[in-house]
């Protein structure tokens, strides 16, 4: 009696799991970590797609960012993942492709509208297979409070020297925090600091590739100079910046208590919500040198290799690569910039100025993302650690470079020469 009851319960459970896993024809499900954007997907993006393809139902099914990688892996291995997979850049997705969870998208027609740099985050090391459609990038720079600049009679700086002089003026006035950046969470120091201004020193792609092929080392001048420039910020950071978390930084600037904010373009929508009268300037290069910006490939979108609905999924992915999608996405989420070469009009003026730098400077991506963060110790983690320490004043720029290089040397052959 008990046995049969148990058996039927088990069967029912198995059946319901199986049912939940198999999608009916014409229906595709999207896996994503962008739960912040769920409304935009449901109200703007998906309806726009369905206006053209009424026979395909799309469901946006996000997971919390911190759990996404682990949850997605578990669902892919258990065969219950959605048809469309939102791709993290570089190794996390490459790993999924190598394990056979992501399908090759080489034959997707809209792939032609993406540059190699845009595709690099979702392409195999040999450059032969691309497995996600590049969806958006984020650009680094600085956001400033226009009201404070007006009050103190300041102009956005063009060179590093002007930048430091500007911070000095704000500090001398004493009312506002000159530069908003905290080191408690560590990634802020690395991402908004090191990766923000660094490309000006290592000449963007040139330096990034030189690090990968081993012809440049972290102990070389460009990297030490980046750390030196970073160390100069310390006197201008907020009171107790060592215990300042990322939300603290956002609030400090959002409430109008900080003048300049070391930014990622994704912060724009946060500050729009707080009604800050803001403008943006790009990472100021040292006087007399060319400018480079970090235009980092951040979100891609690919297809579950085991989807039951590959035809519809490809129709959707091809549409994600279209000009229509690029325009909807760029305007619904100011600060996330489409990577396709399609013509895009952005209405948000701050987002507009971020994207305008693409025309003035050369773009690159964060140098720790491709290949170099594959080993132990993990370069990205090391970078967080040393960047925070350089800003905290507990490590010299030279020591920071040496620690990164030592770590890389332990496992990466091109740096062992």
């Amino acid at each position: 009696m008990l046995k049969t009851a148990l058996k039927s319960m088990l069967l029912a459970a198995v059946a319901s799991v199986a049912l939940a896993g198999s999608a009916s024809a014409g229906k595709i499900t999207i896996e994503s970590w962008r739960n912040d954007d769920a409304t935009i997907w449901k109200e703007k993006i998906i309806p726009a797609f369905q206006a053209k393809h009424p026979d395909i139902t799309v469901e946006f099914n996000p997971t919390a960012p911190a759990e996404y990688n682990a949850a997605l892996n578990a669902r892919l291995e258990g065969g219950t993942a959605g048809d469309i997979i939102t791709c993290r850049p570089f190794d996390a997705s490459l790993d999924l492709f190598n394990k056979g969870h992501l399908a090759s998208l080489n034959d997707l027609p809209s792939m032609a509208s993406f540059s190699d740099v845009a595709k690099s985050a979702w392409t195999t090391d040999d450059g032969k297979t691309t497995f996600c459609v590049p969806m958006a990038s984020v650009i680094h720079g600085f956001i400033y409070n226009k009201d404070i600049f007006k009050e103190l009679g300041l102009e956005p700086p063009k060179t590093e020297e002007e930048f430091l002089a500007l911070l000095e003026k704000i500090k001398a006035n004493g009312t506002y925090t000159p530069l908003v950046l905290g080191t408690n969470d560590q990634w802020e120091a690395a991402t908004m600091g090191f990766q923000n201004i660094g490309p000006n020193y290592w000449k963007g792609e040139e330096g990034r590739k030189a690090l990968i092929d081993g012809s440049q080392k972290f102990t070389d001048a460009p990297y030490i100079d980046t750390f030196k420039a970073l160390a100069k910020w310390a006197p201008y950071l907020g009171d107790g910046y060592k215990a300042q978390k990322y939300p603290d930084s956002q609030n400090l600037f959002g409430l109008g208590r900080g003048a300049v904010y070391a930014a990622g373009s994704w912060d724009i929508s946060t500050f729009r919500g707080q009604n800050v009268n803001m403008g943006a300037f790009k990472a100021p290069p040292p006087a007399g040198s060319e400018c480079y910006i970090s235009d980092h490939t951040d979100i891609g979108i690919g297809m579950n290799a085991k989807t039951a609905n590959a035809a519809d999924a490809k129709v959707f992915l091809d549409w994600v690569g279209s000009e229509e999608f690029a325009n909807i996405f760029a305007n619904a989420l100011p600060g996330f910039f489409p990577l396709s070469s399609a013509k895009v009009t952005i209405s948000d003026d701050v987002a507009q100025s971020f994207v305008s730098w693409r025309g003035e400077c050369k773009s690159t991506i964060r140098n720790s993302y491709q290949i170099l963060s594959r080993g132990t110790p993990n370069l990205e983690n090391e970078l967080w650690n040393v960047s925070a320490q350089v800003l905290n004043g507990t490590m010299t720029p030279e020591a920071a470079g040496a620690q990164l290089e030592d770590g890389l040397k332990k496992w990466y052959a091109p740096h062992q020469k």
Partner: protein
Amino acid sequence: MSRTAYLLLLAVFLAPAVIIYSTFSIYPLLATIFNSFYDRQDDGTSLFVGLSNFTTLLSDPTWSAPFWNAFRNNCLFFLIHMCVQNPIGLVLAALLSLPRLNLRATYRTLIFMPTMLSVVVIGFSWQLILSPLWGVAKMFLSFFGLGFLFGPWLGEESTALLTISLISVWQFVGIPMILIYTALLAIPDELIDAATVDGLNQFQAFIWVKLPLILPTLGLVSVLTFVNNFNAFDLIYAMKGALAGPNFSADIMGTLFYRVFFGNQLQLGDTSMGSAIATMMFLIILTGVMIYLFVIQRRMHRYSF
């Protein structure tokens, strides 16, 4: 009752505990140990590698340096709890058990309250209190003219772990207090009366009569503190993230395990190495508990009333 019926009955009553304990405790533990002998390949398959994960963990400086750093920090974390949390718990319990004390239940509830709050709430509130930007700690100290003492304690390499440990002490001090308080209540009044007749005052009676009687409870409290501290993770993760900085100064075994097993940002999760760390944590805790059981508890006298 026949022997078979007796055995059957035994099985029925044991079954719930055995099933639940095996599924949620023994199986995961064995699976973790098993997993630590394998190495996961890029294509998703696993390869048996024997003890090599452990050799790497303990001998390769890339792994052993973070491991011993986490171990050292964890010992410090435990020592702070032993030296601060448990004595305070003992004193509070002694005060609570004073014969003439008003509002006893109120004190007990208030002190025990933080234990029941979520770690995330605790972490968030304390971060706000200690925040150099908006925190009340700075204003509070300045009010007494002690503002110069304030610092970004959670962000300094020298003070981060200490600060988090003390927050954890604040949160959990209710547990030793309640355990010791219960033990104190169980001491018969006759013993204290006799001691008073013999001329001991309250304090002397506590030191010479009550304290020896509650030693087994103090032992239990120490073991619980040890096990909980070496399994700790949540508060540090909530306040400092998986890198437990600055410069890994607040990194303990739990955060190290999390980072390795689940990955962090660009670091991919490594389940076999993560399992090896988890197994080491298990062995460390096992050793600690063994030392207690075989060396300390055996020598302890128990008094029955």
